[in-house]
């Protein structure tokens, strides 16, 4: 049920306290500054409307789950509209998901730097990495936010890291 009035005590603080995390996640998911702000605003609207589903606590995983779903909705709408991404670093844009993006990445990483390599990860790997490395969420919370089992979170994190480690990890595996 949508929220029908003043927010539950503590929620306003929880939402504002997690605004940077919400924006960082949105920015890494949609990879477009203006769209990231749109996503955060819409996610906040949804958070207000569904305040009743807040279970207290710091609200971080709860809000990031809403942000993540809103961002994926935006990505789906963009895919359906077949728009061209607006501000991508040339060469950093990989289709989501590419057939073997991890392999294609390793060579580019050297030229584009670590940030571009993160941006070029397939979105399902990128979101796990951002939630773990930048937001320091637990596996359990990442599983909740991304809607997959913990085992899947662990393997996606590993694939993301292996892709970023690039050629050196490849050599070890060879």
């Amino acid at each position, binding site marked *: 049920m949508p929220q029908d*009035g003043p927010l539950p005590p503590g929620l*306003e603080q929880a939402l504002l306290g997690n605004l940077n995390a919400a924006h960082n996640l949105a920015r890494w998911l949609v990879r477009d500054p203006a769209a990231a702000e749109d996503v*955060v605003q819409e996610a906040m609207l949804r958070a207000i409307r569904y305040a009743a589903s807040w279970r207290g606590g710091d609200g971080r995983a709860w809000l990031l789950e809403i942000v993540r779903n809103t961002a994926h909705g935006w990505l789906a*709408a963009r895919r*359906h509209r077949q728009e061209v991404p607006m501000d991508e670093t040339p060469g950093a844009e990989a289709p989501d998901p590419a057939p073997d993006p991890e392999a294609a990445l390793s060579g580019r990483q050297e030229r584009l730097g670590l940030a571009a390599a993160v941006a070029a990860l397939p979105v399902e790997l990128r979101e796990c990495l951002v939630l773990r490395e930048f937001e320091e969420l637990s596996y359990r919370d990442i599983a909740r936010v991304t809607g997959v089992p913990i085992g899947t979170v662990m*393997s996606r994190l*590993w694939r993301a890291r292996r892709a970023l480690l690039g050629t050196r990890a490849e050599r*070890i595996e060879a």
Partner: protein
Amino acid sequence: MTDDCDHNRLLLQAEHDGELNPANAAELAAHLAACPACAATRLEMAELSRRLRAEVPYHHAPGALHARIAAQLAATNRAPTTPRMPLHRQLPGFAAGLAMAAAVALAILPMRGADIGDQVVGSHIRALQAAHLVDVASSDQHQVKPWFDGRLDYAPPVRDLAAQGFPLEGGRLDYLDGRPVSALVYRRARHAIDLFIWPAASHRERAPAGRVTSGYNLVRWSEGDMVFWAVSDLAQQELDEFVRLWRSAR
């Protein structure tokens, strides 16, 4: 590289992330002592985390966004409580919050110059993605219709088509063209149909006209003083049938 390594890589990652089960710690320690490759991977993972924090930007919320959100939250919390809806013991100023929300939505929608049909499809997709098709879940039109009361400044017509094979599932508030609008949700087998309804700018009746956007079928018409947009991934003929039945039901 061995199967043993595959297994231990997830363990050493868990250790790195502070998630290692103590029961597995001894097993990992024994493997690391015997496997230089995994021991090297462990160091690389630590170095990668360090570099991610040092070299990759953290995108803090811009000040203007923070101010907008803070104002929005403050406005929601200040909303007065004015009981007027029998369905809800207390209906605080949802409409006031909504007016503010609509102003915010104006900034969000449309997705940069999208026409109404594109917006309708975008809203439909987002509702599907968020698994939030309905705010009020009911197959009873006499429950869905009053739910919009006090949430919108108009009363959308609500009709059930269960007998004709399109059961009503409920309704939700959505935002189109910068204003709150009603969306009725119907189901046909596994397909959802959104029917958006809002007041028309003129009283000109318009016969149903179909189009396809992003793989979704759309039918638009005007009737009385309302505009209707039906959207679904149903086949065009079935959506046309839905529209025909909806218009002839009373």
